[in-house]
């Protein structure tokens, strides 16, 4: 298999940044999704899984935003909300400054021409009865592109992701390896010339040697096509490797967001610190001696009040149970935000920096 798409012409791509000034391509505020459970909580009234609970962030044109968190943190629900595969309960989403959905907003058809998604399971996300050419050209055909033209375009995109069309166009998913299937999923996402790709654990089920091939492919096509990525993964090392900025989620909330080097180098939120410290060293002489955090994630059905991390947090105090912390700047870097009372002067937390004395500028650097 050819590891690089070096020979193919890039698929035609108009200016990817219509404003040319790094304005956000995507802007989300107060996004919320609760799933109602059948049977209720055993108590009074229905029970809800608070999968995504009022999250806000922007994605700048041309960047890679990594979204990291453990199971139940809401990262995959977030991706599905952004694609409108499920409807949010509340919140606003702007693509290129235009409202998505609603009466006067952008249609879902337009949204999905601009935003495409690659899923974790390369096998179940391909139709077993479609050849690769049919699979990749399906979206084009659905948009009225003539069959011959759609097929020509499919061949072009397959070649672009390193799959020789003469060999692969007429194959079925079961005739391909996992890495090849994931290349097809990327090709299908690229066929409509999107500007933003949502990659939901797109390399997570691949073997390491194949994962590296697909990561290289993703980096290369992003450069060549000027794409923007939202890269969702539970793998902290892969997220650090590929992202410009990182968003850390815990039980449906954003707990920290910032430039990748800041979040990994000077994490602010105690959960981020625990998560970063849980990474294995790849050196048997530098093993971890004590668990960075105890216990498991609580259920998102009845999450803890106030700060959702407080049940596992070494810094938890009464204020953490009563007041929901908000994302706030805490260090020298204005784009680095965390939601923790212990970082905010005057929050009522015993370890919060003095108001005035230690401005955010000083405390941010020394914290850890």
């Amino acid at each position, binding site marked *: *298999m050819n*590891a690089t798409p070096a020979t193919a012409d890039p698929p035609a791509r108009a200016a990817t940044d219509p404003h040319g000034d790094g304005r956000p391509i995507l802007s989300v505020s107060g996004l919320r999704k609760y799933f109602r459970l059948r049977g209720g909580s055993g108590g009074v009234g229905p029970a809800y899984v608070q999968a995504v609970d009022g999250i806000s962030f922007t994605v700048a044109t041309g960047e890679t935003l990594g979204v990291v968190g*453990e*199971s139940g943190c809401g990262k995959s629900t977030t991706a599905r909300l952004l694609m409108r595969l499920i409807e949010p309960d509340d919140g606003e989403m702007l693509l290129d400054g235009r409202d998505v959905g609603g009466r006067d907003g952008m249609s879902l058809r337009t949204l999905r021409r601009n935003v495409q998604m690659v899923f974790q399971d390369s096998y179940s996300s391909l139709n077993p009865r479609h050849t690769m050419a049919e699979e990749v050209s399906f979206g084009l055909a659905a948009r009225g592109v003539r069959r011959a033209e759609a097929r020509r375009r499919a061949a072009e995109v397959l070649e672009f992701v390193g799959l020789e069309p003469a060999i692969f166009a007429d194959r079925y998913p079961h005739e391909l*390896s996992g*890495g*090849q299937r994931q290349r097809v999923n990327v090709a299908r996402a690229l066929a409509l010339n999107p500007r933003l790709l949502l990659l939901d654990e797109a390399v997570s089920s691949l*073997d*390491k*040697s*194949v*994962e*590296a*091939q697909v*990561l*290289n492919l993703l*980096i290369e096509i992003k450069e060549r096509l000027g794409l923007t990525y939202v890269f969702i993964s*539970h*793998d*902290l*090392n*892969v997220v*650090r*490797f590929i992202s410009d900025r990182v968003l850390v989620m815990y039980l449906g909330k954003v707990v920290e967001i910032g430039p990748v080097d800041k979040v990994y180098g000077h994490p602010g939120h105690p959960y981020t610190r*625990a*998560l970063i410290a*849980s*990474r*294995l*060293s*790849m*050196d*048997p*002489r530098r*093993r*971890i*001696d*004590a*668990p*960075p*955090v*105890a*216990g*498991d*994630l609580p259920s998102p059905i009845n999450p803890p009040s106030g700060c959702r991390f407080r049940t596992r947090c070494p810094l938890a105090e009464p204020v953490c149970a009563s007041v929901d912390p908000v994302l706030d700047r805490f260090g020298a870097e204005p784009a680095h935000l965390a939601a923790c009372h212990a970082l905010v002067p005057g929050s009522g937390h015993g370890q919060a920096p003095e108001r005035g004395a230690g401005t955010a500028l000083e405390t941010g650097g020394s914290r850890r």
Partner: protein
Amino acid sequence: MSTDGLTPADGRAGTFLSVRDLSVEFLSEGMTLRAINGVDFDLHLGETLCFLGESGSGKTVTMRALVQLLPPTARIGGTVLLDGVDVLALDADRLRAIRGTQVSMIFQEPMTALDPVFTVGHQIAEVVVWHEGISWSTGRARALEMLELVQVPSARRRLDAYPHELSGGLRQRVMIALALSCRPKLLLADEPTTALDATVQIQILLLLRELQRELGMATIFVTHDLGVACEISDRVAVMYAGRFVETGAMAEVIDAPRHPYTIGLLNSTVHAGSERGKLAPIPGAPPDLLDMPPGCAFGPRCPRVVAACRERVPDLEELAPGRSARCPRTGIPDG
């Protein structure tokens, strides 16, 4: 818990497990799939050996063959001596007697390995009652002792919990308690932390390390994750297409890998120190076990390949005591 007079973790009381020329074939529809081709190794009490490899490399099949936990279509060859007993020659009854007491296994997915309709206390007690012929009340007391050993909080209350009432991390602790309840001398662990979240994975790895030190067991740990291997194992055997391709002390293999596959695997793995930019992946994909290339199975993907590599499978050659690689060109730089 006492160590039952076993040798301490660093002891070299002689070989506890000795495996020679182990092979496994699966027969189906007239075809023979050779999953394992001639695996040899020795293991001491107190020692942790890791089988590291990607899907299809044979790491799980090798582990399961040691206790004959394979479907009837499997044909196992070679010898497995466990404390001097030839395991592959045992009948079903005697096999059942050593499973749990001498050898125990923990699996990747505790939800499917535990029985959903019995409480976890009952499941642990059942094992002890069956193997040791003790009463159910003593069995239940042992279950509580085991849950405390694996650091399940509120252990007494958790005895009466069903598996679905526990979190993933607690379920994995329960499975470890179940496996250790008859104090086996050999623990087989098949990717036991792969399905866990990062903050829970490290807790379970630390628990296993601590228990192993305390109980002095021999452990075989199957994983695809280099980070996990470094965290838990003393020695590593890197597997590719049903064979060991490199063995050695964990630190030596990480510091100075000698087989081109190990080198490629290290270069493909994104780790905390990976520079932004490009990775150096191994080209291509592992071979189809039903359609193996002639000679060295890694040949088609190997940067050092020469004509001789296609003629015969290279031997696993000893490079230094305890250190070996299945490549005649280990001294040759890539390029």
